[in-house]
């Protein structure tokens, strides 16, 4: 049955129009990934309005093309000009850029490309095995389970975010708050609509996404518009390593993909963390750790493998539980909602063609990424050299119209700008916008399922601890909160002791 779905997924994808969309997505992803300041979520958001008129699978195929290839694009600029296009590319820079300085830039690009392909394939293999398994378990969940999974997912994301966990929790609460704006889904009483008709339907998720991933990024980068770009050497190409050289990198590929997949499965952690953990582990277990950072292929391979295998890992909670692993999967979820597909625990059973189609596109995207990168590197190099000051006005137009297209009113643009300004101020003081986005997505899910669970149990709160899955979730939530409180108190006591000693 599952094999039939997998095969059907590939059959659905291997159609001319879907392959064309995948190609477009891959090209755009490589470009956007390579341009510093532009992220995968932003590229996906910019293209989202274009997907309105497509069928759901075609839209997801194009977005998957972007998602997969931004990682490699980000590494290209990291390797060539020491400016990572994406945060995950920063790790590839450690060994990739020294290789460029040593005249081995083309070789570094080659190792990066092959590592990305290996990571993408391995991530896909794990995803294709685990998605049906977790999906069938998830099918038996109750409303209480769904609410608890969403709460646990949100707390996990906030806890795992780099930086201050406390600020991430506040961000998550801000997102949950914005999720309550609009008419109450059960009683239709208006909440926080400020008398506005436009807010009665709630805050459109896409509008918030465009604001937080689009306007926020541009406003935050205004101080970098004048930064110069180093020219890239002419004639840059990708020199692929031979089979023996790839086999020699097998341990780096294994380490990178293991960390990428399993860290990617943890919501909120993202590729950036998985690349650094994988790199650190590879360096630690190496017999010659001092060589890392001097320009060795192992350093490039382990980080690039982790970055792309992370995608396979992140797709697992997204498709089976409706919990996005990172900003890009949050946009993918938004795209599903836009096309009237409700993500969550039932997605695998209610829309198997779509789920396996998305997984099939993830694998095909790997090969498209390889082919496009190999053939077009010199054109990308030209684009990577452009200043942000030229690119950002066009991005502003695209995201403004994207916001407009969600409701055909200018109000959506104002709302997106509002979220952009909020996100800008919050990010400037160290708050990440990802927990806010997740709060907006998961808030309505948590509320509706909790109220349904209580309604079905006639107000009995013990429905949230009625079985071992529920108890496990509650215990996990308590452990996460207690652990963070313990770490916070420990840091505070150390700080006070340090101050007293001074």
């Amino acid at each position: 049955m599952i094999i039939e779905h997998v095969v059907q997924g590939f059959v659905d994808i291997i159609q001319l129009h879907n392959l064309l969309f995948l190609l477009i997505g891959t090209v755009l992803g490589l470009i956007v990934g390579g341009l510093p300041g532009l992220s995968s979520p932003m590229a996906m958001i910019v293209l989202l309005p274009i997907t309105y008129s497509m069928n759901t699978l075609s839209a997801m195929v194009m977005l998957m093309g972007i998602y997969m290839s931004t990682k490699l694009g980000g590494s290209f600029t990291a390797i060539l000009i020491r400016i990572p296009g994406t945060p995950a590319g920063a790790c590839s820079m450690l060994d990739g850029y020294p290789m460029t300085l040593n005249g081995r830039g083309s070789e570094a690009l080659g190792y990066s490309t092959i590592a990305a392909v290996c990571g993408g394939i391995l991530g896909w293999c794990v995803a294709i095995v685990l998605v049906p398994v977790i999906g069938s378990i998830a099918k038996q969940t109750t409303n209480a389970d769904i609410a608890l999974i969403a709460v646990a997912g949100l707390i996990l994301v906030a806890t795992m975010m780099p930086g201050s966990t406390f600020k991430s929790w506040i961000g998550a609460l801000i997102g949950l708050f914005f999720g309550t704006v609009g008419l109450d889904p059960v009683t239709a009483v208006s909440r926080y609509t400020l008398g506005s008709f436009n807010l009665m339907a709630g805050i459109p998720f896409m509008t918030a996404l465009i604001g937080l991933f689009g306007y926020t990024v541009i406003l935050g980068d205004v101080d970098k518009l004048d930064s110069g770009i180093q020219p890239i050497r002419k004639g840059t190409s990708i020199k692929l390593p031979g089979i023996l050289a790839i086999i020699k990198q097998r341990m780096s590929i294994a380490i990178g993909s293991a960390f990428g997949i399993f860290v990617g499965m943890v919501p909120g952690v993202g590729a950036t963390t998985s690349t650094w953990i994988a790199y650190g582990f590879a360096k630690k277990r190496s017999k010659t750790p001092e060589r890392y950072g001097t320009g060795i292929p192992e350093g490039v391979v382990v980080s690039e493998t982790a970055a792309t295998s992370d995608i396979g890992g992140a797709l697992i909670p997204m498709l089976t539980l409706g919990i996005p692993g990172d900003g890009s999967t949050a946009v993918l979820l938004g795209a599903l909602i836009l096309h009237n597909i409700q993500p969550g625990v039932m997605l695998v059973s209610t829309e198997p063609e779509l789920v396996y189609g998305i997984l099939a596109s993830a694998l095909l995207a790997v090969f498209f990424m390889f082919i496009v990168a190999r053939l077009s590197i010199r054109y990308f190099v030209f684009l990577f050299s452009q200043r942000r000051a030229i690119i950002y006005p066009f991005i502003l137009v695209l995201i403004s119209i994207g916001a407009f297209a969600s409701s055909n009113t200018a109000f959506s643009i104002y709302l997106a700008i509002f979220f952009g300004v909020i996100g800008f101020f919050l990010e400037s003081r160290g708050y990440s916008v990802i927990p806010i986005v997740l709060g907006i997505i998961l808030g309505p899910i948590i509320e509706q399922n909790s109220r349904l669970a209580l309604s079905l149990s006639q107000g009995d709160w013990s429905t949230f601890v009625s079985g071992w899955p529920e108890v496990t979730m509650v215990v996990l939530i308590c452990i996460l909160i207690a652990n963070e409180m313990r770490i916070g108190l420990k840091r505070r006591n150390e700080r006070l002791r340090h101050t007293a000693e001074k």
Partner: protein
Amino acid sequence: MLNDKLKDVALELLIFLFSLAALVKIVIHVSNVPTNSLVNFATFPIIITTLMVILMIIKLTGTFSSISRLRSKSQTSTNDERDDRSTLELGNVLHSKGLIYIRTFGTVVFCAAYAFLLSKVNFFALTFVFLIIMLLLYGIKGLVKIPILSVGGALGVYFIFVIFLKLPL
């Protein structure tokens, strides 16, 4: 460092006041709307806003104590630690900071203006002018370069959104 903490306090105070206002609003709202159920339309917002208020109080307390620690540190610092930047350097810093503020504020204002005029002015012309303004605001120079980029961009966007997607622009 002290300046950073003061900015933190300002933002945290804003979030605290916002959360408090939202909590008060929903509590008043639920008292005005008759409801039999203990779990109703206001339960979730009340839980969220209460948690926000509590967390912000904790955060503000922490930030205020950091500020008082920093203040006592700066009072005991020696004269050698005084900032000796020249007036010219300070002037340069202020100028670049001013430019950043203008660009940031300008981005918000012009985007809002773009949204406002979308239904009132021809889309192609508006996008063309918007691109010119933004390119100039972001420091791009060139009497030929700017119009060419703007026309190209406006044409591309017009084709994608009006011709291809048939948006009512």
